C-alpha cells in the first residue's frame, strides 16, 4: 500500500460498507515505518492535529 508524503494523510474506507472509516498517516521514509490510523474522535489528539492540518490541506482520497 503506497502512502503519500505530501499530502501526508490518506483517508481509509471500511470494506464492509464502503464508507470512510479513518485517516492514516505514515511516519518515516524507510523501514520500519509507523502508520497511524486515526479515528474521527475530537478528543483524540492525533485527530485534533489532522483537523488543524486539514484547514489548509486536503488528505489523499481513499482507494
Amino acid at each position: 500500500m503506497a502512502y503519500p508524503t505530501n499530502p501526508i494523510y490518506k483517508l481509509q474506507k471500511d470494506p464492509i460498507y464502503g464508507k470512510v472509516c479513518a485517516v492514516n498517516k505514515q511516519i518515516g521514509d524507510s523501514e520500519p515505518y509507523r502508520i497511524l490510523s486515526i479515528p474521527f474522535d475530537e478528543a483524540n489528539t492525533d485527530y485534533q492535529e489532522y483537523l488543524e492540518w486539514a484547514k489548509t490541506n486536503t488528505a489523499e482520497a481513499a482507494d
Partner: protein
Amino acid sequence: MSTLKVDGIRSNSASSDAITLASDGTCTANITNRSNRNKIINGAMTVHQRSSSVTGITSNGYQTADRMLLNVSTGTFTNTISTDTPDGFGSSFKIDCTTADTSLSAGDNVLFKQRIEGQNLQDFAKGTSAAKQFAVSFYVKTNKSGVYTVELSDIDNSRIATKTFTVSDSNWNRYTLIFPADTTGAFDNDNAVSLDLIIWLAAGTTFTSGTLNTSSWASKTNANRVSSSNVNIADSTSNEWYLTGVQLEVGSVATDFEHRSYGDELLKCQRYFCKAAEKGGSDHSAGMGTNYSSSVGYIHVRFPVTMRTNPTLDQITGTSYYRIFSNGSYETFDSFNSLDTATVTPQCAEVLKSGISITQGSANFVRYQHSEAEIRFSAEL
C-alpha cells in the same frame, strides 16, 4: 497498660489538630502523605513501553518513559532510561545533547512536560474561593548548572504560574516548589488536558523577554513564561540532564515521593498507550478474529484498561511484518489497513486487513513476523 485520653493532637505552632479523636472511639487525621496524592503518572520513570533509548531526537514526542513528553525545537538529543538515580529509585529520564545550538533563535525551546486530565485535578478547587496550592517536587542531576524554570500551565483558562530552581552542583538533588492557589478559572471536569507541568531546559526570547509570574497566576503571555536566566541545555554536546521522582500534589507541603508498584504504574500508563503484544520476535500473538470475506479479515483487540478516548492505531510496519493464519494456511503481509471509527471505543478496536486471500467465514489469528513489528494504541494528551 495505660491509656492516653485526649480529644486532639496538634503541633505547638499549628492552629488546628493533626488528629481529632471522637467519642465513638474513632479518629480523623489530616495526613499529607496519603496514598494516591501524586498527580504525575510514572514519576519514577519505571514504565517505558515505547523504548528505553531513542537517538537523533529533533522534534516533539513521547520517546522513552511513558507520559513524559519531550519537546525539542533546536539541537539534537538522545533520550534514555538510566539506572543513574538517587537512593530509593530504580530509573531516571536522561537526555543527552548530541548536536549543539549555542545561539537560540527567538522561538527555540527544549522542555520536559507532563499533560494532566482535568478530571484528575478537581481537588485543587481551582477557580473557587477554596483553591489549593500546588506542591511540585522532583530530583535532578545534571552537569549543566544554572537556573531552570518550572511552569504550571492551565490549558482551560490560558493561565500560568512559574517558579525557578538553581542547580549548583552535579549531584542528585531534590527540588521542591510551592505554587500559589488560583481562585480564577476552574479546571474542566473531563478527559481533556487541563494542566501542563513543564520544566524548561532551553528557551528563546519569545519566552524569556517578559516578567515571570512567580507569586501568583496570571494570563498566559509567551514572553512571561521563562526566566531570562534560564540555561540552554542545547549549548554543548557535553550536557546531560537526569530527572526522576516527579510529584505534583495538592497543598503547601511537598511530601516524600509516593512510590507505586510497577503494575499499578503500568495500568495508569496504559490509559494513554498500550500494545496488542510486545515486539521482539517472530510469532508473538497479536490477536484473533474472523475472515469477513475471501479478501478481508478483522482482528479484535481488547485493551488492558479503558483508554482515555478512542485511540489511534499505531503500527510498526515493513516488508512481511505480519502473518494471518486461517483454515489450515497463512498469508504474510506488510501492514493492516486501519481501524474503524465506527467500531472503536476506549475499550476495544477492530483492526482490518484487506487485499489478502483467505477463506470467508473462518476464524483467524495474527502473529508478528518481524522483531520490529508491533501493534500499539495511543490516546495521549
